[in-house]
């Protein structure tokens, strides 16, 4: 049985897939340890989890959500969050690895310190790619900037001969929580030994009440969400959606939005601050969202077409994947008007090809090997079954 050290940033979207894979590994008798910011995510780990703290004695990294959008938000996320956190985590992570002596390190792609430590100590490591935006090649300017960020991180920690263009992605195995049909069609990917496993089931979900009696099963349900982490104080988008949706008959919508909007909602729109998203998606006919990687995969797994209205981070890239795959329509988040929104919603519900493509993607997502497939590949790497490419 193998010893596996897991490290990831303290962000829920990254935690859920890691938890699912960890559960499958534990079920097979492997011994796990977590090197994480325990103050932020320690409570979400299994009760008996062995934890190496990355935040003892230091202040937790700042995860304040910047109001920046688009490419600027990506720049800030890298320069102000990911890379400072990586620098601070290098030494505690190296100590953890030396102490735990893992056979394999399982590293979230946005915790590059884990990859650097594994490279330095000569340990095989697996990358967990929780958003495919980070393995798609972008434009020369953006790719050069990313490479420069990684070069800066490696200098002073790794010997010169170990410095590589993208140290974050494993030369042994890169587990991608998506499918090739969605991520690898329109754009070139970085060269790496990928295993596309589809979405891993979310493990850490709070129980959320919902007035199920409100749903009229004669009507089609649309879920409107900009995710939890991206929720803006700016309510313009939601107000436009409410007005656009209010004009439809035969449609109900549940909108994940600030409660202050509830009194202004038309009678076919319910505003809730939190919803049981997976259960609602089981009822839904379509989704309007920010193109967060998780929401997109959850919707497509159920064969639901989407309107994608990306704001920041990886969302523009994921939105483009959905559109290129033929399962979604674009909506410009900060500019959309009521007539444009109405036209898009009509098109969403009345274009058979969108639903057909979504169903095809859904079949592929459901057929993907998931967390169990990821766990077997990791176990095989730990057993020495694979070498660095």
């Amino acid at each position, binding site marked *: 049985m193998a010893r596996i050290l897991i490290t990831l940033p303290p962000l829920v979207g990254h935690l859920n897939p890691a938890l699912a894979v960890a559960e499958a590994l534990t079920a097979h008798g492997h011994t796990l340890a977590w090197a994480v910011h325990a103050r932020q995510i320690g409570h979400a780990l299994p009760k008996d989890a062995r934890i190496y703290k990355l935040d003892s004695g230091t202040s937790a990294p700042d995860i304040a959500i910047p109001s920046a*959008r*688009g*490419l*600027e938000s990506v*720049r800030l996320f890298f320069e102000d969050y990911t890379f400072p956190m990586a620098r601070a985590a290098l030494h505690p992570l190296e100590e953890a690895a030396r102490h735990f002596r893992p056979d394999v390190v399982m590293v979230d792609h946005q915790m590059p310190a884990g990859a650097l430590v594994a490279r330095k100590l000569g340990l095989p490591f697996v990358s967990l790619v929780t958003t495919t935006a980070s393995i798609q090649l972008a*434009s*020369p*300017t*953006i790719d050069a*900037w990313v490479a420069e960020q990684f070069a800066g991180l490696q200098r002073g920690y790794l010997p010169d001969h170990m410095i590589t263009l993208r140290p974050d992605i494993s030369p042994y195995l890169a587990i991608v929580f998506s499918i090739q049909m969605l991520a690898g069609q329109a754009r070139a990917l970085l060269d790496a030994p990928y295993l596309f496993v589809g979405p891993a089931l979310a493990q850490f979900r709070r129980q959320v009440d919902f007035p199920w009696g409100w749903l009229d099963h004669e009507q089609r349900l649309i879920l409107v969400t900009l995710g939890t982490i991206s929720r803006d104080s700016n309510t313009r988008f939601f107000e436009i959606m409410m007005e656009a949706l209010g004009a439809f008959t035969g449609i109900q919508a549940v909108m994940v939005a600030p409660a202050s909007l509830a009194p202004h909602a038309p009678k076919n729109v319910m505003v809730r601050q939190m919803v049981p998203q997976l259960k609602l998606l089981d009822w839904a006919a379509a989704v309007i969202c920010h193109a967060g990687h998780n929401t997109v995969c959850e919707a497509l797994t159920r064969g639901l077409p989407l309107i994608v209205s990306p704001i920041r981070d990886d969302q*523009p890239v994921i939105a*483009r994947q959905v559109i290129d795959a033929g399962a979604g329509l*674009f909506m*410009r*988040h*900060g*500019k*959309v*008007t009521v*007539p*444009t929104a109405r036209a898009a919603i009509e098109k969403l519900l009345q274009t058979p090809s969108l639903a057909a493509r979504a169903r095809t993607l859904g079949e592929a997502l459901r057929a993907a090997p998931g967390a169990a497939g990821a766990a077997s590949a990791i176990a095989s790497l730990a057993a020495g079954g694979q070498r660095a490419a």
Partner: protein
Amino acid sequence: MITPDDQILASLVETIRRTINEDWIEDFPITRETRFHDDLELESIEFVKIADAIQARFGKTIDIAGFLSGRSIQDLIALSVGDLADFIAAGA
């Protein structure tokens, strides 16, 4: 008096409106200072379409790809209609 530079700017603005092709852009003021990223929320694929249309309109002397690849990520984020118009004017 309408200068060649004005004509380039006007042509660029017209191309932007046609490419975005949504109701709000009809009345949206587009000036030299308008930024593609923050002010227009332009998708990268739309920028490529605009660039292609400009290439077709002004000929092969406009190396849009070269123009973009020489810039930093900050410049890319702050890129304005005027920046692109100046580049076209310099090459036209």
